[in-house]
């Protein structure tokens, strides 16, 4: 379980968020962690995370980093505190990002685009069912 991940956390083909859990101290880590950062154990196993979390912060990216992202702009990036512990950077799909407060409940929304692009897509809990994550 030491292969370097190429994305924030792996989303399996079934739409589950896969992370690493320490077999010795039970702490959770992002996929790709090389050893446990709590107890130094090397015994990490792949485990399914809930995909639930709380918004820590967000920003609307108006000016993307490269032409590759221009068609998608503006888009929202967000820091999410997963209920398992780790904080991850992802994208948030919502119509009114400026109105979503820090601390709002968000859930992972598996999508083909985010899986292919290597990023996590979140949607506010309140908006689940209202729309489809398009990112």
């Amino acid at each position, binding site marked *: 379980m030491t292969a370097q991940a190429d994305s924030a956390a792996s989303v399996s083909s079934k739409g589950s968020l896969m992370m690493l859990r320490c077999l010795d101290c039970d702490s959770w880590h992002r996929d790709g962690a090389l050893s446990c950062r709590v107890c130094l154990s090397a015994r990490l196993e792949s485990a399914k995370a809930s995909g639930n979390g709380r918004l820590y912060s967000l920003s609307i990216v108006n000016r993307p980093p490269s032409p590759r992202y221009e068609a998608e702009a503006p888009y929202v990036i967000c820091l999410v505190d997963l209920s398992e512990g780790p904080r991850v*950077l992802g994208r948030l799909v919502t119509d009114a990002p400026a109105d979503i407060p820090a601390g709002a409940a968000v859930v992972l929304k598996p999508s083909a685009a985010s899986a292919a692009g290597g990023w996590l897509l979140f949607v506010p809990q309140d908006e689940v069912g209202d729309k489809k994550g398009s990112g």
Partner: protein
Amino acid sequence: MANRTPSVIGVSERLGKRTGASALELHVSVGRDALLDANLGLGDVDGIVTGSPMLEGSSAYAARVAETLGLMPVAVANSLDLGGATACAAVHLAGLLIEQAVCSTVLVIYADNRLSAMTVSPVTRLAEEIDPVYEQPTGATVPAMYAMAAHRHMNCHGSTPDEWAVIAVQARLNAARTPGALRTETLTVKDVLNSPPVAWPLRAADCCLVSDFAGALVITTQDRAMAAPHRPVTVLGSGQAHGHNYISEAPDLLDGAAGVAARQAFGRAGLQPADVDVAQLYDCFTIAVVLELEQAGFCAPGEGAAYAASGALAPDGQLPFNTNGGMLSFHNGGIYHVTEAVHQLRGAAGQRQVRDAEVAYVHGNGGFLSHHAALVLGRSR
């Protein structure tokens, strides 16, 4: 007993948005000028601390500069790589080397031909500094990283973009009094709020300019400084701290290593924020200044934006800040925060001189609020 308190006896700056010079040429020219300013020769220097050029770097860069300049042999040649904290961290390290008698005189150089050598847009190149595994795939940018701190500040403390816009406005007013400043045209709060959105809640005028930069300092013991041609500036205290590297790992975007570094610096100086006459605060984005004001203890946590909006940062305010216009309007880099503090404490800041400036605070912030170094500098008696 010998007084080994580190003292700045030489200073130099080279200006220009796009100098067209190589990184090595910038290092050598400001290094030479700082030695001339200190009236020292090559044989007087036994240590060198530099940064690491973003685009034209090479291994053991400080040694390369030392060799090119003619400083070899030296006891220490260390190149640091801490983004915006590099200049202050280099002075911190130089001070420790001098205090511990590892070196007697250290040349500090921080320079880069960052804009001259850049072949893609700065926002594109700088985004490569973001975590390539976990963060870059989202399409994140450096401004968006700081924007998330701003969003958090809005949410936790009720601050508003018009409050931190005052920081950019004051920086512009200061730049207008500084020879060589890159942006001197009038800027109002309304202009800031109407500037193009870059990464909400930050706009173009909340972001620093990108330019080449070059500056150098000669630091020696207080004993040796007695013979210097200019009034020495004493490193009264310094500190350095790192709370995270990439932003996903920051325990708290609003409180952390910035305060640790500042408290170390003030503690070693035996001074308080209230003793500071002039502050040079790393201003890659307006919100960074807000966070440094709070964590360095110039105002209460959460009140940085309101403090700035109150006019406290004006030349006649409680805490004159970034008297040359800073990175928002003077030049990029972080080295000019240090050189400007030296100018102020020498009483050599011309039109922008803060009257009776005796104590200066300088803060460097690198990465994504990641790396922090702080200096408390004083006018020698």
